[in-house]
């Protein structure tokens, strides 16, 4: 390298982080301006011109995009003069994991957050067609206020663009767990699209409260954003479970780890909101409750981010301790305090007067669903923060783990499945026993046949039989509803029904997905086989009907790691049907080797092989056999597809003077 190259290099290496920081500063300034303009426009629509709002929104989006772009460019050009690159990147990282490194660390993940928020802001701005739309301008202001906080983090405590005086020649690279599986390219962005999306209903709710305006206007206008966010969060949670299963080597998919819980809690509350908003739109009930749920959902996403981004909890997801934790905690308190104060001041104006006539009705079962989902969220939240609170107050350490969560989740989960099996087939207002019986008779018959068949086939787990009973009843009732309410029996007629009532049938699809996930949770828990075997080279053992032999161990050198794998041959009737290669990867600059399991999936079962110990001539394996495991991911896809189907429908809007037609958000955004 010549001196000239060095100079050129150093000026560019300073230019990229400077551009990123400028982008964040631009975003911060523009969101501040937008907050002021938006609130002003909400108070006096004629005081602000629509163009001003539009330009400011573009500046916010442009600033966030510039920051993200600079971050990616710095990573791809090995710009170690930038602090984030020096901490999170290494020259030997492959292309894909270099790109994903942008959200593998604290500062970068906040940049991604700001970009996603700016994207939602731009979409909301498109449906604010004039400053007369006071609900919309107020929502823009609240969204901008949230953006101020996140751009503020980037420019101060979480700044990834800091320039190092003495750049290192190379860095340690991202956490090994974050460069071992391709899912790291999908799970975090998807989770962020979900998390951040709930800012939109929150912003509209705050705007409606400021305007002292109840009604369903804010619900109708946020329906798309809400469903987009919910679908992505559902997908993010399931992908997270899958990632945990494929990467973490412990043979499970859900550990009730604080950070898994941090994604689950907002999902539960958001699911309650998705349902209770239907009750308000259809029957005018639960208005005040919807405000509570939407404030809670948003506050819980911030709390979840706090749990992830601070050292308050022990988890594989945790980034290093920094001032971001206290900032997020303060913001959480602000959201919770501000949101509920506003709600308390304006709540009575928006309280609904109508009440359900009977609990035996669709709205009654929606209430039960909301009760159970809120209780579920409360219990998970309690179990997650309890150890932190006890330690903060008394200094003593306590643990809350799987046994506690399982014991709480199982009865609540059964209740939810029951409500899901009955609710969608119950009429509004009041359901007589005759109506319910006529709708559920055949599904119950089918479910009883399935339960008896399972028992006769030798399955003795009460949980599995009960869950299958509920799931089959639900699927049967859905099928019956489809056939009975379609104009005819031909596939075309059925298709016409599900395309004309997308909200209902999207919901049913999501319910079937949840039922499928529940069945797999039950079967993979109760009917699993586990074994730990130690094999010398050439020695064989029996597991799940196969004879498995430790053939040999091989080392593979890759640019950033040394992979040692064990070749385990599975034989059925003497023929080799599969060679499993569980592995240990050692990364340069990282003391601990990371295990990687080998998962052999078929539609009927998974065989999971993890290394407990590996020496050249001797291996200790943890073996797991899970029936039906891969259907869990199919169930997750169904839940997401249901959400997308529900939001793909055309929406008929009443022609009100203030009602501005929403621009449709792209489903795949």
């Amino acid at each position, binding site marked *: 390298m010549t001196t000239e190259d060095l100079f050129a290099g150093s000026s560019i290496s300073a230019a990229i982080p400077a551009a990123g920081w400028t982008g964040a500063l631009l975003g911060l300034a523009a969101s501040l301006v937008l907050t002021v303009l938006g609130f002003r426009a909400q108070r006096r629509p004629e005081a602000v011109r629509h163009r001003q709002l539009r330009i400011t929104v573009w500046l916010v989006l442009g600033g966030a995009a510039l920051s993200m772009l600079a971050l990616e460019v710095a990573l791809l050009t090995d710009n170690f003069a930038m602090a984030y690159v020096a901490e999170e990147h290494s020259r030997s990282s492959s292309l894909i994991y270099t790109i994903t490194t942008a959200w593998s660390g604290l500062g970068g993940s906040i940049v991604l957050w700001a970009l996603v928020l700016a994207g939602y802001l731009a979409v909301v701005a498109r449906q604010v067609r004039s400053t007369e739309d006071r609900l919309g301008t107020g929502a823009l202001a609240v969204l901008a206020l949230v953006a101020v906080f996140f751009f503020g983090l980037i420019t101060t405590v979480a700044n990834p663009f800091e320039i190092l005086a003495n750049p290192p020649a190379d860095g340690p690279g991202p956490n090994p767990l974050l460069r071992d599986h391709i899912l790291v390219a999908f799970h975090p962005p998807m989770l962020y699209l979900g998390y951040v999306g709930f800012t939109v209903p929150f912003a509209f709710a705050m705007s409606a409260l400021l305007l002292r305006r109840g009604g369903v206007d804010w619900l109708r206008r946020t*329906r798309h954003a809400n469903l987009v966010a919910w679908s992505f969060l559902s997908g993010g949670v399931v992908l997270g479970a899958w990632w945990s299963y494929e990467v973490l080597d*412990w043979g499970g998919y859900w*550990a*009730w*780890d*604080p950070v898994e819980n941090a994604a689950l809690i907002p999902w539960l509350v958001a699911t309650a909101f998705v349902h209770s908003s239907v009750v308000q*739109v259809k029957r005018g009930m639960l208005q005040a409750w919807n405000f509570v749920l939407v404030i809670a959902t948003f506050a819980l996403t911030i709390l979840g981010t706090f749990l992830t981004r601070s050292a308050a909890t*022990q*988890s594989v997801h945790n980034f290093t301790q920094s001032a971001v934790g206290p900032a997020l905690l303060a913001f959480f308190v602000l959201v919770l305090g501000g949101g509920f104060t506003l709600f308390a001041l304006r709540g009575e104006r928006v309280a609904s007067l109508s*009440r*359900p006539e*009977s*609990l*035996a009705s669709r709205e*009654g079962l929606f209430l039960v669903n909301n*009760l159970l989902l*809120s*209780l579920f969220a*409360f*219990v998970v939240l*309690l*179990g997650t923060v*309890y150890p932190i609170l*006890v330690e903060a107050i*008394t200094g*003593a*350490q*306590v*643990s*809350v*783990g*799987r*046994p*506690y969560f399982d014991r709480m989740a199982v009865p609540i989960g059964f209740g939810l499945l029951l409500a899901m099996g009955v609710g969608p087939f119950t009429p509004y207002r*009041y359901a*007589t026993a005759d109506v319910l*019986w006529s709708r559920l*008779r055949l599904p*119950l*018959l089918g479910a*009883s046949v399935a*339960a*008896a068949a399972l*028992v*006769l086939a030798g399955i*003795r787990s009460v949980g599995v*039989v009960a869950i299958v009973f509920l799931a089959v009843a639900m699927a049967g009732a859905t099928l019956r509803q489809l056939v009975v309410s379609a*104009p005819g029996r031909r596939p075309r007629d059925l298709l016409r*029904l599900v395309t*004309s009532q997308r*909200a209902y049938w999207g919901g049913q699809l999501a319910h079937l997905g949840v039922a499928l996930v529940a069945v797999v949770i039950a079967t993979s828990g109760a009917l699993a086989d*586990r074994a730990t075997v130690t094999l010398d080279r050439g020695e064989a053992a029996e597991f799940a009907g196969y004879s498995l032999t430790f053939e040999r161990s091989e080392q593979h050198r890759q640019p950033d790691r040394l992979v040692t794998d064990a070749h385990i041959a599975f034989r059925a009737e003497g023929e080799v049907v599969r060679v499993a290669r569980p592995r240990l990867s050692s990364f340069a600059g990282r003391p601990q080797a990371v295990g990687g399991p080998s998962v052999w999936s078929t539609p009927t079962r998974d065989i999971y092989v*993890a290394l*407990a*110990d590996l020496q050249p001539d001797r291996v200790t394996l*943890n073996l797991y056999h899970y029936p039906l495991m891969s259907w869990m991911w199919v169930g997750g896809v169904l839940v997401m597809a249901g959400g997308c189907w529900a939001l793909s*429908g055309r*929406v*008929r*809007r009443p022609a009100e003077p203030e009602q501005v037609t929403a621009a449709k958000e792209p489903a795949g955004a």
Partner: protein
Amino acid sequence: MRSRLVHLGSVAAIVALLAVTAVGLLLGDRAPVDRAYELQQQLRCPVCTSVSIAESQSDTAVAMRRAVDEQIAAGRSNTEIIDYFRARYGDWVLLDPPARGRTTLLWLLPAGAALLGLAAVAARARRAPPPTTELSPGDRERVAAAVDRARSRPAEEEP
């Protein structure tokens, strides 16, 4: 008459099938309980991040698993084994928090929340259901005809 037969027939079939299920579940031989695994799932691995010793492959967890196996072989009861680990590592080692001491609230609060929620839901719907009147056969036919007409039209939906 026919609908009554269908009704009775379905009730009988469902009851019979569920009886078969219940008897099978009650009388069938249970899979043997893996006591060691159940205990290991309740003990937290001291050197890992929030997993039990059943799931961890660290040396400490392996040693603790061996200790559990030895104690079971020595004929100790579950409580004795749990107490043994508690004495050595403190309450922190229990993944299943006991309903006493510092972790009492973990059990009281959910119960309180559930009661509160039930009361709120019950209060929402305290009125007696309104009397329903059955439709006359003529009305029924008119409704059925209207529903058929509505279904054969492509519908737009409410948000």
